[in-house]
């Protein structure tokens, strides 16, 4: 039996954008309103069946870049694909995502990635507007508007990234 396909996927973004919540929604289908900051990195697993193949995703939920911790590039070694996560209600988190894209590129080169603009359930309060989203798409980025709370677009985003990792 051929050994299982395994891919490492990293979650990158400012703190409190919903990285941990997205992973938890995707892996266990649950959501919590309380915010517990992530220290270091938490590694989770989930197996997906994509295009007749079983793929074990190993999800690296990194701490958000903040005053106390800078994301260490060593965490990104061996990454097959990654998500840049921004919080739609906090405009500057998109700038942080753009910066993280540059740092990530230096370690993982052209590995596939998607931008997740999260907290879509709070769309009325968003600071990130359609023009900014269109700009990202014009730059060739794949963008999903997700909600870790309702689960909207979450599974789809992971399946899409997995497919692109398998094609790559």
């Amino acid at each position, binding site marked *: 039996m051929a*050994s*299982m396909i*395994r*891919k*490492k996927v990293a979650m990158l973004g400012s*703190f*409190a954008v919903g990285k941990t919540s997205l992973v938890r929604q995707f892996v266990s289908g649950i959501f919590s309103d309380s*915010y*517990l*900051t992530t*220290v*270091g*990195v*938490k*590694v989770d*697993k989930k197996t997906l069946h994509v295009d007749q193949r079983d793929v*074990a995703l*190993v999800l*690296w939920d990194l*701490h*958000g870049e*903040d*005053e*106390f*911790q800078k994301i*260490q590039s*060593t*965490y990104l*070694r*061996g*990454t*097959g694909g990654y998500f840049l996560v921004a919080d739609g*209600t*906090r405009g500057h988190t998109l700038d942080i995502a753009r910066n993280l894209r540059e740092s990530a590129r230096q370690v993982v080169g052209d590995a596939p990635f998607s931008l997740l603009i999260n907290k879509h359930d709070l769309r009325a309060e968003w*600071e990130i507007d359609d023009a900014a989203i269109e700009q990202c798409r014009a730059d060739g980025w794949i963008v999903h508007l997700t909600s870790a709370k309702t689960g909207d677009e979450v599974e789809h985003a992971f399946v899409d990234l997995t497919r692109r990792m398998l094609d790559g």
Partner: protein
Amino acid sequence: MGDAPDPLRGQLLDLLLHDRTAAWLEVSDAMRVLRSGGDLAAFGLESAVEDVEVLGYASFLVGLIPVQSGPLVLPQVKTANGRYADVHVSSTGGRTLVLVVDATPQAERLATLQQWGNDLQLDRERDAARGDRETRERRGRAQTLTAAVFLLRVDPHEHQTTAPEAVLSLRQRGLASLALCVSEHAGFMHRHSVTESLALFGILPSDGSPAYQAAAAAVDAVDSVRELAPRTDTPTPFTIHVAAGIATGEAVLGNSAVGNSVVPAVFGDPVDRALNLALRAPPHGVLADESTWSSCDSPGQPLAAERLSESASGSPLFLFERG
């Protein structure tokens, strides 16, 4: 651990001396475990035994083996059973050595500090979004904490000419040493204001009582400064004194920085009380008042406290010493 591969032995010995739990794996390029040892179960790695496919049990290694260039250190990886570990990975000659070392206390301390900072930052962003500038600048959070105030004095000996730089450098070493000791102990918050000779720390509870942690931190910090003091056989022209006061109570944690940065600050009654106590403490003593002392009880505490005679205000004061 006697059967560990040679390159790991020295490293392991050092680590064990520091009392940290550790485990190790030796893995082939075909991802098979060749050997493993140490406290594997502590990290949920008990199934990573000889001949199993390692990635099924240590998924954090996916994509990493073999390590392409030089050894790799992954700090504070949360392992299957909730413990944090620093993971060291290095590959040579078709084999990869993985060393997993407990880092839970460090990670938990960082979490306390970071949670507080991130919460504060989120509050500020929310306020800013509301355009509520005034609140944003003043915003604080009330919380029970223990303030620790240290008074540091560097005295030239009699008949010595003063050398200001030497005094300054000893004072700075003293302050640095205080900061280090306090941060080692507790959800260390912040060196709030450092004037010529005053250092203020707010100590948040990370586990157990903040007063207890503050007392332990203060005693350590005072000891560390005392160690900077010249030994009798090597005369130097200065003496360094330190005294501390600790007080528990409701304080406000705020941010004294403008803009987007975070410079934590602590204000309120415990700060004033701690300062008063520091002023009255004997050299190298840590003084607490009755309410702080009574919230300090903790089984197995390494401190002894001496009940001082009635203070001027009529309530007893408590002096801590290393037990």
